[in-house]
């Protein structure tokens, strides 16, 4: 799963030469052997390295504060989202929904690595949501639709249909 993400990320960043990854441990944490012998372990570590390689530092944030927010959401992705239980999914969606009420992107006013990795991370949940649930988490769905239409982000994942009009009005049913 993480390996597919990383190869999509490479394409998204425009890196010409695909790297070879291996995994370690039960949880299949990705590992990258760099040229100078170092082994980079972990999705976020490798992703950050790729961003540096592609010379796109803005994807990690501009100011120190901005960088911190990006790191916070990357950490959220790896700790909370990956391998979480079914019951926690609702909480995560609710959290994201309330956070995104007044924001276009997860961190600051621009597209960052946080948006990409969070998109990859929750896609498998969103693709199964019913229309009514997507409307319930309106802000999160809006952000998701925005990210999935971003050029070159959505490589290995099928698009999720998001309706433009509200089908479930405030009444019951």
């Amino acid at each position, binding site marked *: 799963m993480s390996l597919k993400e990383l190869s999509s990320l490479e394409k998204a960043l425009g890196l010409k030469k695909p790297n070879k990854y291996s995994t370690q441990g039960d949880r299949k944490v990705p590992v990258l052997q760099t040229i100078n012998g170092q082994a980079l372990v972990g999705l976020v570590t490798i992703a950050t390295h790729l961003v540096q390689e592609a010379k796109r530092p803005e994807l990690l944030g501009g100011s120190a504060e901005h960088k911190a927010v990006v790191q916070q959401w990357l950490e959220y992705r790896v700790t909370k989202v990956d391998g979480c239980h079914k019951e926690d999914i609702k909480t995560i969606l609710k959290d994201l929904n309330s956070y995104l009420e007044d924001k276009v992107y997860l961190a600051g006013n621009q597209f960052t690595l946080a948006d990409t990795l969070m998109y990859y991370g929750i896609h498998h949940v969103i693709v199964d949501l019913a*229309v009514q649930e997507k409307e319930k988490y309106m802000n999160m769905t809006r952000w998701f639709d925005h990210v999935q239409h971003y050029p070159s982000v959505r490589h290995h994942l099928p698009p999720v*249909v*998001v*309706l433009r009009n509200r*089908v479930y*009005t405030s*009444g019951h*049913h």
Partner: protein
Amino acid sequence: MCVWAEGGRRYMVFEVFLKGTLFFPCEPDRGLVRVHELTPEKAGQLIWVRARIHTSRAKGKQCFLVLRQQQFNVQALVAVGERASKQMVKFAANINKESIVDVEAVVKKVEQTIESCSQQDVELHIERVGLSSALSDHTTDKQTDRHAHGGRTDGRATVNQDTRLDNRVIDLRTTTSQAIFRLQSGVCQLFRDTLTNKGFVEIQTPKIISAASEGGANVFTVSYFKTSAYLAQSPQLYKQMCICADFDKVFCVGPVFRAEDSNTHRHLTEFVGLDIELAFNYHYHEVIESITDTMVQIFKGLRDKFQTEIQTVGKQYPSEPFKFLEPTLRLEYSEGVAMLREAGVEMGDEEDLSTPNEKLLGRLVKEKYDTDFYVLDKYPLAVRPFYTMPDPNDKKYSNSYDMFMRGEEILSGAQRIHDAQLLTERAMHHNIDLEKIKSYIDSFRYGAPPHGGGGIGLERVCMLYLGLHNVRQTSMFPRDPKRLTP
């Protein structure tokens, strides 16, 4: 026994065991005024009312009563004064709720609207009160209290559905139940009137039949002398036989029995079916138009003549008013599938609609066309019964249709095969034992006109029209896999 309280004295009455006579002034030709007629126009008049005691509240020298009659209620007051004694006020306060009382009172106009009653501008000042039907000793006040007043979400006690259904007689007294079943009576009335005006003939079909009509799975078996018989799952066979008998346009209203072990909000084992069948001239769309026009006339009739009932139900179960288009919206099945796919649902061209997909499609149609009622035409042949006429232009589809209200199916209908040869072929294709349906196929051997029709469930239509959520609310004494009484 009847007890009277009048003026300053209390009469003790001895029941005389002569049939029907009671030993005190009781004038049989005394006029009784209906509660819904108590309006400010009658202010100052001294009138008699017979109603049930809905609530009673005593406070010192006064007793406030709310008298209820079907969907209507009015406030009444007994106060110590020149017309009433302290004992009379005490007597009134002690009458059990739900007792039927005869009251002689003066109608008084009130300045402040009484929000909690249907008659909001008047109240009754009681001069005489008599108990004409008391509760028998073993019923508790609490029991009647819960049922007649229960189920509201405005902070009052709620009663769950099973309890209500077990004590249906008391539950049916509530203003909401009264309104629901009056509306249901209206639906039957409008159905009959509309069709009769269109030249239809009402027929009565047998319910004890020898062969299961819709397939053997969901049918009740009854013992029939030395053999067994079945309870009819639909009047399908007989409607068609009437068309073959040249009745041209028929309808019937009668019970339908489905032994389906489904415990859902919309299934009953016995319900009232309103069925239509008609021969058409050139195209089966004439049938669809006839049915949809009938439905529209019913909706209009309910909207115009039953507003009071709709509002009463809406107070306890709020919902959006039912919307429909004229002429009725008709979409093709493939269009419906396309709309669902656009919303992200994956399904095959010839796949049947699942219930969640039906509901979603209903939502999408509502959002796009602003209607709660529509027809889905040209269903895939593979998912329809054997007697459905295939589409002559595309063998994947059929001349069949479903109609939906608020996203739930209310009618499944089609053009029927009227040629014995084709019918036999289709039956064999469905692996149906031809012996069992021999008489059905034979009825088409003597020349049958092309025809089609469909049937609706009365309870489901009422439930969906009012925006209720359980078909048991619109069935007076519902039957389901777990309920056989009352």
